């Protein structure tokens, strides 16, 4: 007696034979599936993507490892040198210049940095050196007062610049400080880095240390800042031309035109991008 089913070919197969055939078929599917998975992983695109991701990650890791952990590790030199023979303390330019440009500034303020690194250099080359204007720097160092720390970075940077002025290198220190601006109250001008900046500005470091430790420069910077606030200066940079508040755009062209107008000498506006040498 036959107990199996008839196949399409008309042959009888037992249940055991049928199950064996189904198992073999399932096994075949599994091996095909495994082969397909292998093929995906062996695809050059996948291999290359993995290698590329590893290489990209290694590049990021290298960059991360070699970049400074703190702002003290690397300093950037100013782009322009201070013109020789026209600096006197916190003043740059001849006393006979018809226009006095008073700049109320904070070494931590990003706008002041913009003014010092982009606007001032062509103004100095084209208007200060020829004798049309002189710059006078004033402290409005109130950015550091926004945080409650024992080391007020704005006031300490201002004090360091005043110490540099005692050594006849205020503008060098001014340029080094702004070139190494590193955010507001983020440690850019913490003691070690400020000292490193002073050293880079070629100050006599023994004299600098004594000056900073004495504390009177910090007091003076704070007092000038208080006076600035009392006189209504609420933002930096604030620019006065012969004592009159400059309200124009802080660009080389507009500020240059305003200086020339104040000097009573209309002339073509100074060109952007020329750096003092």
């Amino acid at each position: 007696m036959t107990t199996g089913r008839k196949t399409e070919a008309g042959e009888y197969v037992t249940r055991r034979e049928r199950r064996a055939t189904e198992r073999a078929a399932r096994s075949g599917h599994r091996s095909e599936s495994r082969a397909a998975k292998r093929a995906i992983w062996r695809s050059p695109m996948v291999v290359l993507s993995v290698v590329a991701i590893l290489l990209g990650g290694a590049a990021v890791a290298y960059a991360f490892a070699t970049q400074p952990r703190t702002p003290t590790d690397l300093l950037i030199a100013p782009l322009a040198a201070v013109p020789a023979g026209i600096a006197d303390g916190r003043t740059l330019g001849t006393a006979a210049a018809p226009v006095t440009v008073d700049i109320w500034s904070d070494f931590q303020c990003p706008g002041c940095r913009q003014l010092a690194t982009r606007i001032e250099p062509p103004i100095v080359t084209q208007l200060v050196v020829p004798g049309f204007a002189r710059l006078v720097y004033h402290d409005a160092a109130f950015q550091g007062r926004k945080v409650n720390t024992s080391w007020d970075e704005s006031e300490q940077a201002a004090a360091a610049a005043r110490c540099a002025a005692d050594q006849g290198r205020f503008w060098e220190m001014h340029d080094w400080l702004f070139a190494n601006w590193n955010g507001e109250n983020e440690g850019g001008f913490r003691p070690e880095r400020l000292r490193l900046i002073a050293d880079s500005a070629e100050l006599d470091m023994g004299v600098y240390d004594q000056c900073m430790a004495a504390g009177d420069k910090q007091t003076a910077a704070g007092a000038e800042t208080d006076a600035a606030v009392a006189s209504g200066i609420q933002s930096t940079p604030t620019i006065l031309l012969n004592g009159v508040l400059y309200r124009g755009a802080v660009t080389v062209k507009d500020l240059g035109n305003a200086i020339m107008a104040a000097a009573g000498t209309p002339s073509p506006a100074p060109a952007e991008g020329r750096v003092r040498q």
Partner: protein
Amino acid sequence: MITRRVPARPLLGVHPALILAALDLVGLVVASYLSIVEINGGVPTCGPFHGCEEVALSEYARIGGVPVAVFGVLLSLVLLSLALAWWRTNIYALLLAHYALSLVGVIFDGYFLYLQVFVIKAVCVWCVTYEISLLLRFAIAALVYYRQPRPDTESLDQDV
């Protein structure tokens, strides 16, 4: 075999290598400008935008003392060479190499964009232009790969 020649399927009516080469050229010009300015001690200008100065003057703009833009020039030169070589030879491996190298660049540029936005807190429009061009190069290379006949499944012109 990835070293075989496979005719490229046109993209926008041209050989896709030419589109990649055009983007490589954009990246090369941007990176060259930034490199030349920074090597000469200057800072790039952004016109009405601001942020290039902050990024260029930050300590993150250099790796091992070398401006980051210089690495961008090298990468763009290699990518441009690969794109042109692929255009001339149709060697499949050159497309894959372009894809992989642009992916390396995209990963690094992602990190650099993070630095600009969250650490330096200023965005350089030149850097972003380069980053967009690199992202496009990567995306196009990937797209071309998926549209491209595989050397092991399609008829092959010839072995190399």
